[in-house]
């Protein structure tokens, strides 16, 4: 039994779990909206577009400048994405793809003028989940609180806009503002998470929880709750697996990847459970004369 709790009494494991649980609370509801609005590609793009901000922030103000730089880049992306997709000259996915590659490349070009080129990129991909500092925890908590408050206020119009944009417009909501609000919320989550847990894990946290919850329920509130619960469970099991594999068996299992793979395993189990709960529609009765 102690094997299930003991690893988390080590300070860095405890902080990693705390960071992930904080993110679970905010990613549950946000991922549901990402799922409803089909913003998976946008979420993926945002994890890449903060990169030039991270680099510039580092160049300007060292380690302390990273969060600020990422925040500026993420907000710029949210505005640019909303503007370009509403402008409608390019299809949505083309806009996202071009913005993603252009901004990420800007970061790469900037980094390539520095020395520790590859190690920076690796840190960006993986984050430093096991070296999360109390300051980062506080930063994540603040951003999570802002996002959750914003969502609590605008949840109703956001959901209406997702299901019936025309009705939302008729009801007097400004669609561009709603889109900007949701894109900004996703951007803030990315900023809160990317430095600590890396891009791989952020993409997964914004997409997989809601997709899993959707397999188990049809109701929105239940989806958000299940999404949070699943993320929390996967965070615990993934970290435990990573710890056990590394300490007990000497297999190098990256913690971020372990958490994502656990989350995907939950998705597959939910897929199975969904099928069992609701057997596939029986074949239509043969027509008899």
């Amino acid at each position, binding site marked *: 039994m102690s094997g299930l709790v003991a690893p988390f009494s080590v300070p860095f494991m405890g902080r990693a779990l705390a960071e992930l649980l904080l993110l679970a609370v905010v990613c549950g509801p946000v991922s549901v909206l990402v799922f409803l609005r089909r913003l998976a590609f946008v979420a993926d793009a945002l994890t890449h577009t903060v990169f030039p901000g991270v680099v510039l922030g580092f160049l300007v103000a060292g380690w302390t400048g990273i969060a600020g730089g990422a925040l500026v880049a993420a907000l710029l992306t949210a505005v640019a994405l909303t503007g370009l997709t509403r402008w409608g000259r390019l299809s949505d996915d083309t806009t996202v793809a071009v913005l993603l590659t252009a901004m990420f490349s800007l970061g790469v070009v900037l980094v390539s003028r520095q020395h520790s*080129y590859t190690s920076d990129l690796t840190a960006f991909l993986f984050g430093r989940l096991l070296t999360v500092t109390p300051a980062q925890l506080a930063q994540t908590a603040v951003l999570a609180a802002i996002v959750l408050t914003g969502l609590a206020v605008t949840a109703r119009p956001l959901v209406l806009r997702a299901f019936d944009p025309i009705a939302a417009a008729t009801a007097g909501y400004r669609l561009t503002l709603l889109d900007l609000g949701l894109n900004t919320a996703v951007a803030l989550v990315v900023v809160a998470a990317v430095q600590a847990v890396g891009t791989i894990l952020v993409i997964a946290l914004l997409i997989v929880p809601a997709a899993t919850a959707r397999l188990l329920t049809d109701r929105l509130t239940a989806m958000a709750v299940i999404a949070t619960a699943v993320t929390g469970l996967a965070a615990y099991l993934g970290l435990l697996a990573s710890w056990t594999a590394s300490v007990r068996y000497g297999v190098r299992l990256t913690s971020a990847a372990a958490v*994502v793979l656990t989350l*995907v395993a939950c998705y597959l189990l939910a*897929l199975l459970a969904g099928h069992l709960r609701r057997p596939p529609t029986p074949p239509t009765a043969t027509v008899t004369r």
Partner: protein
Amino acid sequence: MSWLLQDTFGRALVEAVAVGMLTGLVGVHVVLRRLSFFTMTMAHATFPGVVAASILGINIYLGGVVAGLLTAAAVAALARTRGQETTAATGVILSAGFALGVALVATQNGFSRDLSAFLVGSILTVTTENLVVTAALLAITAVALTVGGRHLLYVGFDPAGARAAGYRVRLLDLALLLLVDLVVVAIVPAVGTILALALIVAPAAAARAWTDRLAPMTALAATLGAGSAVAGLWFSRLWDVAAGGSISLAAAAVLLVSLAAHRLRDGFRTIFLSAT
């Protein structure tokens, strides 16, 4: 030609032109069918295949193609599950594939170099094998699209009509996904995932701004792709910055200029029409 292949920059130039043309050709269909996210997913999800193949000691291109086919099948199957749709299914596969690849790479030594090469590529260290594979695929793709491009377009725009006209719609869709898979697997080792996506989407979207007809659009996309690649390489040499990043910024600049030109042309046309 052979003098070009002697020197590093010359080889990179040849590879860049070949990759730019190849991505331009395929990109037209990716942009018209809105397959950008799928392409991105393909680039990430073939990663574990490539890593597994290199660990097991089999051909890495084979590993990538097999992983790509599994990806396409998984996205298609998940998207048909109740309550899931294509975007979410694609996203799940993307995260799963990426994480699996990273987990596999991390078990090996010296993984951070491999990972950043996967992301941003290393076109300046392109191997002869990379060059041969890219050139061969360019020839195959050019032939395939000359024969089947028009049919692919029809199936994409009007699946019901195509089915009624006797087309095997599923088969043609699958053929397109397979083509995207092959292109991604062929070019990612040399240019990385981000540049692959940039070169597939941006030149084709730029060509789309100039014309509505398929044949000129495809030719223009291939030209713009190759042009962006050469210009990007040139700038990277001039200013001593990363080649991959510089090429994809060049592609984005070409798109911006095309969009601006399109807008200007529309503006002039309106003025001209209202004056007469």
